[in-house]
């Protein structure tokens, strides 16, 4: 079995120790890990070894903007981090797998092992009070 990128191994370990919600994807946008704090916000447990592609995770939680309009993958912070290879931040609303709507702030950034080698991206997020 091929080893994950060392940066991703370290990022996952780092995330697993954080009380802040963290969501990790590979360079293709496939979900590789989210931590316990993220489980609480997303309303579901992380399942090891279950590959969830970007199209799936970007719609599962029904992200919406402040007007209730759906937010496409390319406009989600993690989508920007993956496609434009730059950090991004946005406030969105999601509906967790537990059916609970939540307003969250999301900051995402790409992970570069070398200047030309993106090994994935990470999003951190947290619930905010209703605006």
């Amino acid at each position, binding site marked *: 079995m091929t080893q994950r990128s*060392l940066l991703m191994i370290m990022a996952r370990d780092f995330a697993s120790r954080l009380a802040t919600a963290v969501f990790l994807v590979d360079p293709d946008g496939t979900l590789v890990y989210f931590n316990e704090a993220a489980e609480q916000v997303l309303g579901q447990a992380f399942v090891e070894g279950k590959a969830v592609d970007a199209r799936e995770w970007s719609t599962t939680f029904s992200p919406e903007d402040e007007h209730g309009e759906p937010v496409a993958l390319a406009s989600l912070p993690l989508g920007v981090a993956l496609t434009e290879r730059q950090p991004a931040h946005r406030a969105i609303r999601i509906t967790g797998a537990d059916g609970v709507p939540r307003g969250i702030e999301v900051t995402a950034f790409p992970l570069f092992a070398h*200047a030309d080698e993106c090994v994935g991206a990470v999003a951190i997020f947290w619930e905010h009070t209703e605006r």
Partner: protein
Amino acid sequence: MRVRVWGARGSLASPGPDTVRYGGNTSCVEVRGADDTLVILDAGTGIRPLGVRLRERSHGPIHVMLTHLHVDHLEGLGIFAPIWSADTELHLWGPSSPVSSLEERITRYFSPPLFPVHLADVPANVSLHDAPEEPWEVGGLTVRAAPILHAGPTVGYRIEEGDRSVAYITDHEPALGADLETAAEEWISGHALSFGADLLIHDTQYTDGEYPNHIGWGHSSESHVATFAERAKVDRLWLFHHDPMHSDADVDRMVRRVRERWGVGEDRCVGAAEGLEAEV
């Protein structure tokens, strides 16, 4: 392949009466292919006596594979006899950093004030190569490098000849990134590199009792290496990178504990000592 240890000490050369059996020289392992291809793993002080041996016989290109640039893995290069001969073709392989090539990084050490001569001024024909991500051929050997968990850019190596393989993973703390007993294999640093190897040469710097005071220093404990070897399904294991504060008796005890933990005997697990050789 024939594998021989020329230096197995970690961190600092440690000669003296307490380290005679395992030796005091820092990391250096010679790998010879069936066609006499020569690969040298790391350039610790153990490379000095190897250089003396090489001076006594003709040799083809020399490939030195550096795992990283901490001094104990590099400090022998300046006193490696073949680099002072214009007849030597020397290839240095090692990890680049996220922003610098191996050449840029290694010349920082190999220049004043840390060393009196610039690398560019040694007589040997020296070529520097960033260790590629894809396997490459060196004579009849196939070499693979992969990043492993240690402080700073560090790689481990797997060398194959036919269906035989040696994995050299020193200065490695896989437990820092994953629970070695429960993590999926793809999340364990070094696992793919060493999986099914006929011989694994692996860092075992700390006892289980010492490790808690050295978390993050980039090295493994007895339990870590036993678990790692078991999960990697290697045939034989040489414990390597002995702590400079450990005597021969200390290393003997560590070897026994790793065997017990892994459930194997002397035929599969020994402490790497200068002069230890094996046909793989």
